[in-house]
């Protein structure tokens, strides 16, 4: 998965298709670490994909107002793998990639602020080097 960082926002390329589609569509989404869902799409992006409607979802925004969206299932293609993910669809949605999706693909998100680069890669955190006891 390719990522971009413009100095303020992080974007990633995704490929998604509906259950009955053979052809995936490439989209560029903004990564929103405050969004716990997987992927949100506005109607005009979601309908052509042929996503399958599963129901509706409700939650309360920070200002106390309610927010609603349709929930569909779509197939995400990432690094040669196909993953079925929930897609939040509403008229006012932006194309957002949430923490849920980043968790699902089990990659680490690395941001190089200096060079404005984003990497999605597997990496293993090295165990801390055991410190030697101080000899007195």
């Amino acid at each position, binding site marked *: 998965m390719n990522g971009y960082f413009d100095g303020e926002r992080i974007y990633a390329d995704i490929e998604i298709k509906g259950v009955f589609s053979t052809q995936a569509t490439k989209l560029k989404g903004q990564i929103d670490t405050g969004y*716990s869902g*997987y992927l949100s799409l506005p109607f005009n992006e979601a309908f052509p994909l042929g996503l399958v*409607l*599963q*129901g*509706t*979802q*409700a*939650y*309360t925004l920070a200002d*106390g*107002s*309610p*927010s*609603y*969206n*349709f*929930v569909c*299932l779509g197939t995400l293609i990432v690094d040669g793998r196909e993953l*079925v*993910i*929930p897609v939040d669809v*509403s*008229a006012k949605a932006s194309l957002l990639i949430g923490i*849920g999706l980043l968790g699902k693909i089990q990659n680490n998100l690395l941001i190089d602020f200096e060079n404005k680069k984003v990497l999605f890669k597997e990496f293993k955190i090295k165990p801390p080097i055991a410190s030697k006891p101080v000899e007195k």
Partner: protein
Amino acid sequence: MNDNNPSPNLSPDELTRKGEEIYLNDLKDKLEQTNRGEYVVIEVDSGKYFIDKDVTVALEKAKTEYPQKLFFIVQIGTLQRNTLNYKQAKNEWLF
């Protein structure tokens, strides 16, 4: 009507209203004690619900039992009671 029949007359608004009522009146207090952060998928005609940490798994459980139905979905802890009192025009969220 068979429980597994689709509900042709249930609009998204009605599905959401019934789902909110079931969640806020019957499930919210209980589930927030034990399953906060997980997803609950509610079949609103029967009131039956399915819970999992992964919303796709919860949906799969629900669809196994009700393959023709649409569901109301909440991430437990993210929906507050005052939602029902909030003034909102019908269908505002659709268009």
